[in-house]
């Protein structure tokens, strides 16, 4: 139950409840829960359904008691809404980016109509003859014996693809986007996680 009380104290601090008042409420709660435990009662029998949500319980108590400074509550709400809105916007952009990556083309594609069109304008052949190591270029004639080598092979007609596979990146972006949307909802709602606290 210490965890429940600690969460209440954190919430009261966040709401700018005076320390003395927060400590008084925490001490009251702690003593009551200790008595209940000694009597064999569960925290739920003392706290009702408030036992499932320490933060909401703390907010309700402080609010009803009128110990939250008037400026604190709206400011906190406004700040939380702003953070949630920014998170949601970023998450939606991330999600759409992910979907775009997943549904779009991942590679650059060049179609080559014919090999000759893309061959370099001047091809400088190299003459290699048996017994000589000359590498001087010879233009416009071919030797009787020897082999005329082109510096590179002609580019064949067809399709050239380049680039990396972006699908994993797309999935990561989608997951991040969905997580961001869920996170923004939690931020906006103030993480009211329904949790059962045990007497410990």
């Amino acid at each position, binding site marked *: 139950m210490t965890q429940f009380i600690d969460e209440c104290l954190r919430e009261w601090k966040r709401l700018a409840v005076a320390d003395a008042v927060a400590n*008084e*409420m925490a*001490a*009251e*709660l702690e*003593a*009551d*829960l*200790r*008595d*209940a435990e000694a*009597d064999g009662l569960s925290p*739920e*029998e*003392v*706290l*009702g*359904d*408030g*036992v499932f949500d320490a933060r909401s*319980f703390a907010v*309700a*108590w*402080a*609010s*009803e*008691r*009128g*110990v939250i400074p008037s400026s604190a509550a709206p400011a906190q709400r406004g700040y939380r809404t702003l953070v949630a809105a920014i998170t949601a916007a970023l998450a939606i952009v991330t999600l759409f980016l992910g979907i775009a990556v997943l549904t779009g083309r991942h590679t650059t594609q060049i179609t080559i109509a014919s090999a000759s069109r893309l061959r370099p304008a001047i091809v400088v052949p190299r003459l290699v003859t048996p017994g000589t190591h000359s590498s001087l270029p010879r233009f416009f004639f071919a030797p009787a014996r020897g082999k005329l080598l082109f510096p590179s092979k002609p580019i064949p007609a067809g399709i050239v693809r380049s680039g990396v596979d972006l699908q994993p990146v797309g999935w990561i972006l989608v997951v991040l986007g969905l997580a961001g949307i869920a996170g923004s909802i939690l931020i906006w709602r103030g993480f009211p996680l329904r949790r059962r606290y045990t007497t410990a």
Partner: protein
Amino acid sequence: MATSNRRRSQLLRGVLDLCLLSVVEDEPAYGYEMTKRLRARGLSIVGEGSIYPLLGRLEREGLVETHRAASNGGPPRKYYRASEAGRRALAAGISEWRTARDAVDEVLGLTATEVAA
């Protein structure tokens, strides 16, 4: 069952403040002691809202007075007791409750007669 629980919860929420004022009308009590008194009178708050926010409101509205006093061997406790304004609010609340209850009884009684007929 869920509908039944929800209705009971809503009914109780509307009069729980009167019940609290009633159990501290004559003798002061701290929070848990009030829970015990409610249980002794047949009212369990399991599944209902906690009494603490309600006590906070009663305190803020001046319907209960508080003081700290030592409990039986334990640490000092915060005791609640109905103030003069609280007693008046309790009397008025009891009157409103009876009026509402009688009206509902009347309607439900008519409904029962119609069904029987």
